[in-house]
């Protein structure tokens, strides 16, 4: 199995997962693959990327905590826009995803 997809569940007693369409995106300039219909955070996680951003003051590593858009731990820069909650934002082909280490900019 491809190493980068080792966290993908391939067999499950109850659920089946729709993984028909592959999409390409970049994280910190590196090209990665995910699936249509999943969040950016899920695709990053499946690629083994758990550190999404760093805290404003002490620059401590941040990953998502709640995965439903409440906790604000997963803010990243997506297509140049800061403070995107990647745990709820859907992955799209060609997305440019970058880590965020500050409060972000409006434009």
């Amino acid at each position, binding site marked *: 199995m491809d190493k980068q997809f080792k966290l993908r569940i391939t067999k499950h007693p109850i659920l089946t997962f729709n993984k028909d369409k592959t999409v390409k995106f970049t994280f910190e300039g590196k090209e990665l693959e995910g699936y249509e219909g999943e969040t950016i955070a899920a695709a990053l996680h499946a690629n083994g990327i758990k550190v999404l951003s760093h805290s404003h003051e002490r620059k401590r590593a941040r990953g998502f905590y709640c995965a439903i858009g409440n906790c604000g731990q997963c803010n990243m820069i997506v297509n140049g826009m800061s403070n995107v909650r990647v*745990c709820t934002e859907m992955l799209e082909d060609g997305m440019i995803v970058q880590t965020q280490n500050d409060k972000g900019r409006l434009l």
Partner: protein
Amino acid sequence: MIEVEVLVIGGGPAGLCAAINAAQAGAQVLVLERHELPGGQLVKQTHMFFGSEKQYASVRGVDIAPKLIDKIAKLDKINLETQATALGIYEDGVVTAEIKGVYTHIKPKRIIVATGASEKTLVFPNNDLPGIYGAGAVQTLMNVYGVKPGNNVLMVGAGNIGLIVSYQLAQAGVKIKAIIDAAPKIGGYLVHAAKVQRMGIPILTGYTVKEAVGTDCIQKAVIVKLDENWQPVEGTEIEYEVDVMCIAVGLSPLAELLWQAGCDMKYISELSGFVPVRTKMLETSVKGMYVAGDVCGVEEATSAMVEGYLAGLAAAESLGYKNEIMAEKRQDYIDQLEALRGGHIGKKILSGLKKVTI
């Protein structure tokens, strides 16, 4: 400005059921759901529900959501907007929302707030390390998107959520090193505990997290035994090499909109946080504003659905929609809630409700 008779904020089990009932009674309904997928937390719940047939007992949560969404699709009076987040409720009754990226004003005659709850965290050194997730987050990742959170997990919390998510992790092929709980006894149903214990997963009661260890991600979890005064006992530490720590220590109501709207709020520990004072028909102290589901007291999806039906009915009735079966339906929902709150967990809920129901 969108004018609507009933605005439902939240498209989870409570909100969807509220919308169904309000529309069936004759009201025009708009539902705002912030995610792309309606159904709330139902969409990640692979376990079968308890309760009675009316609340879809023995049906898995993942299969209940499509049933409710189907019902809504058949009701012309409901407009269900996804990727729609309510932003504020103002004194003149105007609600602002972002609907698919567009800032929108809504003027509803009645509002049903069904925003649910959010996961609590636990305080210990390095609790912010990536790899430490809320139990709901693990469920989302695993059961909605088919991605494992990692390979070795320490589960914190032996309530129903901790036990059920442990079982689901095992189903997905993830190893659970242990389930721990600070309480001296397992909090969840014994039927769930027995299931995970049969899989060889140890449950350690009277233990808490001392610290997490790691640089960029969690690499180790250290737990420690608590004495009868809940103080850590030195020398009883156990270390686990894990890449995931899953925190299942409960939820607290997502009540920001209720605070902003000026509802009377009370801290009720049995209901897991600040909740609105409400009538038996689930109307808050702000006239025309109703609540249903976890936002008015953390319980389960079954009671959230019944509360939703009740609030939807009450909101429609207050608008003047009447029919001959309404009284009967209302009594049925009240009876269903009573039955659902019959067990030992229900006792706690009932004592909390007593303090906020007027």
